[in-house]
């Protein structure tokens, strides 16, 4: 596995641990880092997971909405800054 992929897997693992054990703001850190560095669909998966774990069914899925926003908002920025 390349260093880049290892870093990507590491960030996903950090995101899962943050969703499970960390304070509410912590999952956003790996989500933003992933979105800045990679074209990462996992960001939305992390958002979905966090909402599945903590949000009641009929509650607005704040993490999922944020994740979609992060992925699509960072896409032009990532392309512009040539991070990938």
């Amino acid at each position, binding site marked *: 596995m390349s260093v880049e992929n290892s870093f990507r897997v590491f960030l996903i693992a950090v995101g899962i641990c943050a969703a499970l*054990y960390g304070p509410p703001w912590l999952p956003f850190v790996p989500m933003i880092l992933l979105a800045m560095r990679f074209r990462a669909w996992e960001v939305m998966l992390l*958002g979905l997971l966090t909402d599945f774990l903590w949000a009641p069914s009929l509650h607005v899925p704040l993490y999922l909405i944020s994740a979609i926003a992060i992925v699509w908002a960072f896409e032009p920025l990532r392309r512009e800054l040539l991070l990938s």
Partner: protein
Amino acid sequence: MYATALIIIIFLLDLVAGGRLRASARLGASDAYISFTQISERVFGSGLFFTRAQLAAENSQLRAELAQYQADDAAYKAANDENARLRSLVGLAAETPGRAANIVSSLNASAYGTFTIDAGIEDGVSRGSVVYTPDGYAIGIIAETSSHSALVTELFAPDSSTEATTGDAHIVLVGQGGGNARAQAPRDSAISEGDVVRAPSVDAPVGVVGHVEPSANGADTEVYVRIPANLRTLTLVYVGRK
């Protein structure tokens, strides 16, 4: 684009399935949480990650504590604490039919002011049931249930509001998270620190007044309410039958 659509479809599928996907996720997360807690207790309890300075500090602290603990049988104290906790649960059970349940998730990880317990529909827990501390203070309401677990929404979840009474005043508690809430009461209200705050919606005490001070403009009184139990160390709750 396809990934976004897929994620949204999964989310909608869960809604259609009545939250079954999220119940499965919570079940897995509860197992992971319990395993992680046990492993971290063993690893950090073993002193493996202590630095020399930490060990030296701990050593001197332990020497000081030793003198105290020689006179105080720790085993007896632990058993006594456990006994008191169970006794309070028995007292609560006599007044309110229900069952005890363990907290199987972190209490500070949720942005929604929620946590998971290991009792569900098949254990007699239903949506809307009130969740109490062993001391009998209501701390939450069951928001969702699956077969053997349930999601609890804290009464003092951030920005939640709960009508309550204390002293001679009716107040609206605005949750601050972490078992704390604040409210505004008329300035001539007879509210003092230590007063019990009751919520008619759950027909139980929900906290005690921790601090009272005049508001910035002087027109009202700011009332700070907290749950007497430490939520971070709470592992056992009592779920009333609805």
